[in-house]
Every structure is written in C-alpha cells, then in structure tokens.
C-alpha cells in the first residue's frame, strides 16, 4: 500500500547540507497500522510528509496504492492526495468554519455538490461522535473533539491511507487513548492503512502492528510491535523501552555504581524476559542452582498485545564465579542480561 524505496531528503547543499532522511526503505501492507517512533529531529515529520509529497524527496521512490507519487504532475498529485488523508498534532482546523464546514472542505475542493457533501459529512460526524456539534466552531471544542473533527475531515474523501503526524501529542493521556481507539476502529472497519509518527511508546503499544525506529534520518529498526517491546535490537530501542517502562535504578544506587568489578563488589543487572520465561520461577531456581542470592530492586510486568514482558533490576549476591555462572544460567533461559555496574558489598 505504501512503499518507500531509498528515500533521501537533503536540505541545503555543500557543508551546510542537512540530511533529514537517508536511504529510507519502508513497506506498509494494506490495512495495517505502522508506527514510526523517534526522538524530535530524527526525521519523523519529514518521513511522513514524503508520503503525500508535502516534502518532495531529494531521491528515491514513493509508491502509494501502486502509484509512483514523485512522478505526478501537479494536477495528478492533487488527485492522489484525495486518496491520502492526514491529521496533525495541532489539528489545523479552519477557525472561521463550523465543524460541518470543516469536514466538508475536502469535498468542496473535489467539486462535490452540496447535497452529496451533506450525505457524506453527517455520517462521518456520527462516526466520530460529534453529530451534535455540527454547527459549532472549533474554538468551542476541546482538543480531543478537535482531533475527532480532523479525523472526520481526513476521511471525507474516502482515502485508502491515513497519515497521522503526532496526532495525540497535544492531548492528555485519557483523550489520547480515546483518539487511539477511534483510529483502531477506523482501521478495523474501513480497512484503511495507517502510518503514524510519534515519540510516545504508549501510542505504538496500543495500536500499531509494526513499528520502525528512526534515528538521524535512518530507519534503524523495523519489527513487529511484540518483538520490538520484548527484544529491541538497538540501544536506542532499549532506551525507549526503559524510558517507557520507567525502569531505571534508584538514584541512590546509581551514585554507588562502579564501572568495573573488584573483589568487594557484586553486579547490578537489568533482566529482560518475555514469553515462557515470564511464567518460570527463575529467580528461586537461580538461588537454588547457582547458590546466588537475588535482591530485587525494581520489577515490572507489561503485556504488549499478546505478549508479556518482564523487566527487573536486581543485585546478584555471591562470589564472582557464582554470579558469572548465574548470568550464564539466565541467558541460557532466554533472558536478556545487562550489567549496569557493580556496587560495594554492604559489610
């Protein structure tokens, strides 16, 4: 449905050139919800704008619905854009138009008749739950309602693709989840392919099927959401996950951490486990089989779609050999073990 091949975007030239996107390859099958996550300035905005050519790629190909977007003439491009809806972080509703007229705008642009417009707009407002607000102006609506109007507007021209540019970033958590639910329904009922960009793991976790991680204009990961949350392939992916789970060692412990082990220290590890490992009593087995005591500092279990993910920060108490053996034991049982540092033994 959407296929980006070797898409690059460079602003400026020579020494001052900024490479916003570098050789991005991305395939999004019909009917799926694909998330692109990254820090600000990573190129998310540029990437999503390359799909409907609000930004023209410097090189590469953009296929939407089998149509090469970069080769279209202005007129053809406008037609193609009717098939691609887009919603924005700041909603971008016209302040001087009512809710009804905002949703009618794309249809007016296509030259639809007034009666046809009415027949299309009212069911859309019904669908986003704002049928009673048709005559109000955007200023009278809450942020979540504005985004609902924007969604109805984006769907007015019956697009096959919906682009969401940080669509929930300006909303509170509760409103965010109701908007995400609406997007999931739309994807489900209308089979619309959704590409969304975000910096929030929560968004990816709740509605995406697949996710790409973008960093410095490059896609560094592309995975099923379940895989990404249980075993991110890159350090940046892990950082996002740890930040999302709000799992980092207590400050007091961080201050005592030493980088290399010595005779009087023991390791502090972060364990990530998923799948069967979650339901296995590994910690008590560890104590029995390796004679290592485990002091749990933090632990958390999250369910992501149909997967379960566990994270734990713990001190392993034992001799150097024992703790080494313990770590190998854990790794053998499909746990990811990350040594955060070493702390002095409490005497």
């Amino acid at each position: 449905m959407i296929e980006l091949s070797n898409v690059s975007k460079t602003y400026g030239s020579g020494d001052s050139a900024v490479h916003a996107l570098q050789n991005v390859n991305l395939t999004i099958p019909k009917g799926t919800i694909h998330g692109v996550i990254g820090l600000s300035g990573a190129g998310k905005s540029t990437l999503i704008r390359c799909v409907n050519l609000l930004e023209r790629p410097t090189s590469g190909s953009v296929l939407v619905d089998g149509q090469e977007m970069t080769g279209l003439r202005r007129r053809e491009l406008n037609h193609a854009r009717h098939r691609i809806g887009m919603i924005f972080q700041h909603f971008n509703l016209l302040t001087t138009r009512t809710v009804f007229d905002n949703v009618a705008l794309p249809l007016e642009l296509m030259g639809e008749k007034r009666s046809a417009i009415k027949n299309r707009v009212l069911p859309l407002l019904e669908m986003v739950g704002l049928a009673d607000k048709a005559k109000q102006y955007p200023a009278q609506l809450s942020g979540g309602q504005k985004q609902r109007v924007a969604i109805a507007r984006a769907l007015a021209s019956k697009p096959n693709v919906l682009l969401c540019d940080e669509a929930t970033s300006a909303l509170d958590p509760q409103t965010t989840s109701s908007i995400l639910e609406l997007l999931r329904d739309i994807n489900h009922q209308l089979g619309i392919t959704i590409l969304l960009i975000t910096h929030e793991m929560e968004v990816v976790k709740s509605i995406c099927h697949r996710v790409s991680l973008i960093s410095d204009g490059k896609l560094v990961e592309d995975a099923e959401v379940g895989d990404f949350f249980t075993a991110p392939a890159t350090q940046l992916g892990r950082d996002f996950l740890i930040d999302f789970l709000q799992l980092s060692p207590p400050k007091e412990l961080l201050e005592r951490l030493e980088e290399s082990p010595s005779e009087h220290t023991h390791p502090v590890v972060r364990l990530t486990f998923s799948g069967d490992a979650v339901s296995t009593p590994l910690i008590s087995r560890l104590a029995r089989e390796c004679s290592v005591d485990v002091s749990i500092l933090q632990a958390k279990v999250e369910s992501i779609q149909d997967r379960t993910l566990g994270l734990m920060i713990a001190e392993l108490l034992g001799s150097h050999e024992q703790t080494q053996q313990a770590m190998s034991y854990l790794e053998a049982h499909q746990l990811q073990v990350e040594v955060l540092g070493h702390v002095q033994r409490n005497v």
Partner: protein
Amino acid sequence: MSSAMFDLILQATLDTLYMVAVSGVIATLLGLPLGVMLYVTRPRQILAMPVLNPVLGIITNIGRSIPFIILMVAIIPFTRMLVGTSIGINAASVPLTIAAIPFVARLIEGALNEISPGLIESAQSMGATPWQIITKVLIPEARGGIITGLTITLVTLVSYSAMAGAVGGGGLGDLGIRYGYNRFKPPSMLITVVILVVLVQGFQSLGDYLVRKSDRK
C-alpha cells in the same frame, strides 16, 4: 450659522465621503490581490516566485515611501489623463487611490501572515490548488485582520483627503483651509475638525464591530 454655511459644510462632508469611498473601494480591489501576491509568492510559499516577490515588494515600498502631498502633485499629468482635470474631488481621488493601494497591500499581507502555516499545509494535504487555498483558506481565515486593515485604510484616507484640500481637491479639508485658515474663521475650522473626528470614529467603530462579528477564535 447661516444656511449658506450649512450647505457648504454638508457639501464638503459629502465630498469627503465620496473621495474616501471611491479611493477606498478601488484601492481594496487592487490592493487585495497585490497583498495576496506579496504573501503567496514568498519563498517556500504556495506560489513561490523568487524574482517576482522582491520586485513587488520594492514597488510597494516605493509607493508607500512617497509623501502623499508630493505624490499628489507629482502625478498631476496622470490624473489629468485619467479624469480630464487636476482639481476637484474626482481628481483628488486618483492620488488617494494610488497612495492607498500599497498601504492596503501591506496590511493584507500582514493579516495573511498571522495565519498558521499548518492550515495551508493541511489544505495542501487535501489536494487543494493554490487558488483554492487562497479563496477557501487564506482570505476567510484572515477575515478579521483584513477588516482591521481596511478600517485603518479608511481612517487614513479621511485624513489624506483633508490634505487634498490643499491643492483644491474639495471636501472638508478644502473647506477648513479656505474658510477657517485663509479667511480666519475659527468656528468653520472647528466644525470641519469635529466632523472629521466623527467620521474617523464612525469608521473605526464600524470596523471594530465587523471584526468582532467575524471573530470565531
């Protein structure tokens, strides 16, 4: 006040309104498109034209920098060509219009500049043509700012039209100078000034009312 004086004042007021109306309407009809052009041909705008934009900007600035009293005299040949005479209210309307066009254009440009770029971007994402963006997004969304700008223009035209009196243009300014100043009749001068104040107040209140009515924010 004699009835002859009253008739004079009434006629002068109507003359002033005539000049302001004629020049205001024509300057809006020409200044609005110029203002839109100044905006949409900017770099990275919907009709970016890197050569035309600065040229339009310079022409507009020249128009705005010539003092009105000098402009009035300088374009007398042009005025004569257009209306056949260089005195009277029709003749005075010509320099008033010429002076107001760049004025209107810059105010319109400023009003358009207040529109969030996101609105233009979202219209583009819907497949809007530049003309559709101008007529369905830019001008409606800048409505309040445009009305404010036109109000400022009308008020400025009232005071400029008084200046036109200095060269026999007719209207309240002309009356004030001939009767109040040259014949030293302070009451006439005072009445002219009071009427001008009332006119300006009236335009401003009307403008404010229309802006309030159009405001949906």
